[in-house]
């Protein structure tokens, strides 16, 4: 985050460090809410802008639904009233399906939370980077590499579930941590910008998975295509709602995600290391002057971010997927960037945003069934949400909301 516009009012009860180095001022008007959560800004930028952003994105999505049906468009010339009625019905069907698919039934809620699991973990990965002034675009690759290592642990070892599952998750964390840590190390030691290196690492990971799935060690016996062996039952995340309906996919991965969110919160706002991370993010030169080890912070932040990304991939492999196929990360690592922004890079915000994005994914499938509106519309809506989050002036202009602080720049230019 640049120095002149928008020094984040990072706040956390870590008084002994604040005496030596203060990453940001304890600005006026900070309520108890901010002091407890460590979140910054007033309620407008924390709650109102995200809500309005989601609302506006849905409205624009509705317009796209309305104009993307050729037969409906041609009807407007013949019978405008009927066309209007049918357009409304189409939008109603689509969004109705979206909502019931996400929250309308036990199955919907189960699907929402199932999707939210990897999204929250990947979103935490991006968010912790943002807090330290690093832009981790590499969650996708970290998911893949972490997921692959979790997969190998999952089918290779044969242990009791109490040992096997934690080991598989640990493997996933380590795989991702290595894949994130290398860009962090390159950034710290050579200045190579993490945006470039993590993008490249994503693609290296994608190609590597393509390769690995063809090796005899990983490829399933007797299959010519790219599919891995199955994870053993002892490394699977247990299903939670099997007693209601065996079809319900919700699994213990959601607890991993929530636990990780709490751990990231504790790390960022309650620990000395986290204070250093945020100080480095607010002002690396200042942090260095205050005696903090900026190199170590960069490496650690990226390794932890990578580890969280790796966990996101692992929970997918160890629960709903059970095996790896090319692109098993399903672009969730890119959704995570949007999600971290919507969640204001705060662990609790990420959890809420993750549930929202999980709802969009789960509801999108139902939307496709209930109306003929394709699930790809979800991507458009997500992109629009980010636009309005990143440029709150737009929201301000549309809804005449006052006093919205402009978004701050997260990364430095490539030249620095």
């Amino acid at each position: 985050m640049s120095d002149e516009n928008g020094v984040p009012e990072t706040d956390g009860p870590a008084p002994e460090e604040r005496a030596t180095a203060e990453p940001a001022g304890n600005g006026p008007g900070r309520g108890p809410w901010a002091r407890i959560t460590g979140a910054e800004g007033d309620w407008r930028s924390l709650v109102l802008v995200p809500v309005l952003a989601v609302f506006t994105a849905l409205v624009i999505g509705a317009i796209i639904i309305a104009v993307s049906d050729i037969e409906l468009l041609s009807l407007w010339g013949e019978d405008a009233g009927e066309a209007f009625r049918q357009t409304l019905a189409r939008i109603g069907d689509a969004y109705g399906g979206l909502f019931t698919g996400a929250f309308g039934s036990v199955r919907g809620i189960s699907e929402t939370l199932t999707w939210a699991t990897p999204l929250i973990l990947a979103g935490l990965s991006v968010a912790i980077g943002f807090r330290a002034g690093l832009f981790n675009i590499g969650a996708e690759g970290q998911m893949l590499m972490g997921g692959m290592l979790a997969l190998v642990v999952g089918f290779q070892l044969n242990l009791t579930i109490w040992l096997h599952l934690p080991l598989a998750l640990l493997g996933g964390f380590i795989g991702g941590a290595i894949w994130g840590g290398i860009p962090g190390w390159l950034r710290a030691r050579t200045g190579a910008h993490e945006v470039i290196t993590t993008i490249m690492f994503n693609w290296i990971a994608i190609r590597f998975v393509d390769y690995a799935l063809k090796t005899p060690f990983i490829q399933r016996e007797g299959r010519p295509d790219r599919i891995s062996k199955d994870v053993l039952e002892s490394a699977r995340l247990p299903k939670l709602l099997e007693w209601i309906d065996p079809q319900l996919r919700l699994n213990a991965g959601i607890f991993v995600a929530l636990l990780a969110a709490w751990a990231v919160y504790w790390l960022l706002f309650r620990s000395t290391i986290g204070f250093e991370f945020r100080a480095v993010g607010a002002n690396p030169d200042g942090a260095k002057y205050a005696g903090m080890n900026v190199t170590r912070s960069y490496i650690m932040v990226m390794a932890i971010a990578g580890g969280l990304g790796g966990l996101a991939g692992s929970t997918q492999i160890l629960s709903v997927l059970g095996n790896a196929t090319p692109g098993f990360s399903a672009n969730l690592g890119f959704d995570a960037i949007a999600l971290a922004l919507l969640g204001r890079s705060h662990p609790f915000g990420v959890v809420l945003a993750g549930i929202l994005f999980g709802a969009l994914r789960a509801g999108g499938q139902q939307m496709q069934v209930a109306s003929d509106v394709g699930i790809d519309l979800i991507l458009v809506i997500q992109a629009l949400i980010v636009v309005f989050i990143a440029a709150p002036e737009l929201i301000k202009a549309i809804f005449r909301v006052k006093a919205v602080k402009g978004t701050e720049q997260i990364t430095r230019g490539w030249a620095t």
Partner: protein
Amino acid sequence: MTAGTATAPRVLRSPAEIRRSRIIGIVYLLLAAFVLIVFAVGTEGDATFRLATPDDRFQLPDLVLSAAGLSYTVAAFLAFLGGVQLTRGFGKSTNVILGLAMALVAFAFLGWAAAGKSFSLVGMLQLTVVKSVPITFGALSGVMCERVAVINIGIEGMLLSGAFMGALIGSLAGPWMGILAGVLVGGLLAFVLAVLAIRYRVDQIIAGVVINIFALGITSYLTSSILVENSDTLNQVTIFRAWKVPLLGDIPFIGPIFFNHNFFVYAMYVLVGVIAFALFKTRWGLRSRAVGEHPKAADTLGINVFRFRYLNVILGGMIAGFGGAYFTVGSAGAFDENMTSGRGFIGLAAMIFGRWHPVGALGAALVFGFSDSLQAKLGILQTPIPGEFLLMAPYIVTVIVVAGIVGRARPPAADGQPYVKE
């Protein structure tokens, strides 16, 4: 430093440069050892390289080399290069020599892979040029934007949108209109990027990521909701045919590789030349670069920083849209979901590898296109090397370059920073 060293012909070198020079020397020696052990020892048979396509006017005879002999020669030459590099260095031509060394290694590799077989070298190099087309346009788009200090991560999305519009409008109104539509939609997305980055000072990487997500979403959505049902009328475009340039196309070996392609390839040559000339020889170029290097100074001198940024970013988007139209109008003939599959990011890599220079970008795109076409042709040769590693090569090379391990790419000084007028 004494006056003596200053007047000596040898350029003063910093410790970092000396270290870099040593690393390159060691790389040469390692490559020599690699070629010797892997490609030369134990390889038998002759490699037959075909140097002409069947419809060439002048039929060059096949080049038949002893695979082992070729590798021994290359290894010896690399060892010699390493020795020279470590003792006196190559000075200004270091990078050219490095490129030459890499080309030799690639050649030795081909000889090893084709030992005992016949292999169309000209066909592979022709495919290299074809594969490099979208990468080059993507890289040129990046050059245009980043020279005025606006980072464009959204190249991928612009390519994809250009491809979509090329197919849709191209099917309705002919391929030329398809190209025009691709150019316009690329410009439109770039305008959005420019407004977000310049007017609202949104983090430029976020703005680019948004464009990628949006483009992927909207093209996939419209494909499934409109194109699939009407694929005969809306997703079937006439492809540009290859056109052999008179005279140039008849040059043995060179002709079929570079001068027997369709419109997009020639447009690529022209555009690279025009942008290189415009950036470095015209007033517009000087001003653009000033805006990218030091916007405040440029502003002080009366250059309208915002106008230059808007203009160049939109032009850059149009170039990407044009390159996107290549996928449908110039190559496949129909749009397919996510058909660009990361070419925009390779374009970004090519821009960095080409050091933010149009000609460098073309060179980098050719190198990346080479690894792409090599991967495509390796299946024919049945080598034990997995093709996935060749597809990884562009990304690995880029990481090496940005980390400054071998050479260093330096972006424009103000790259990625919004400008605030005081």
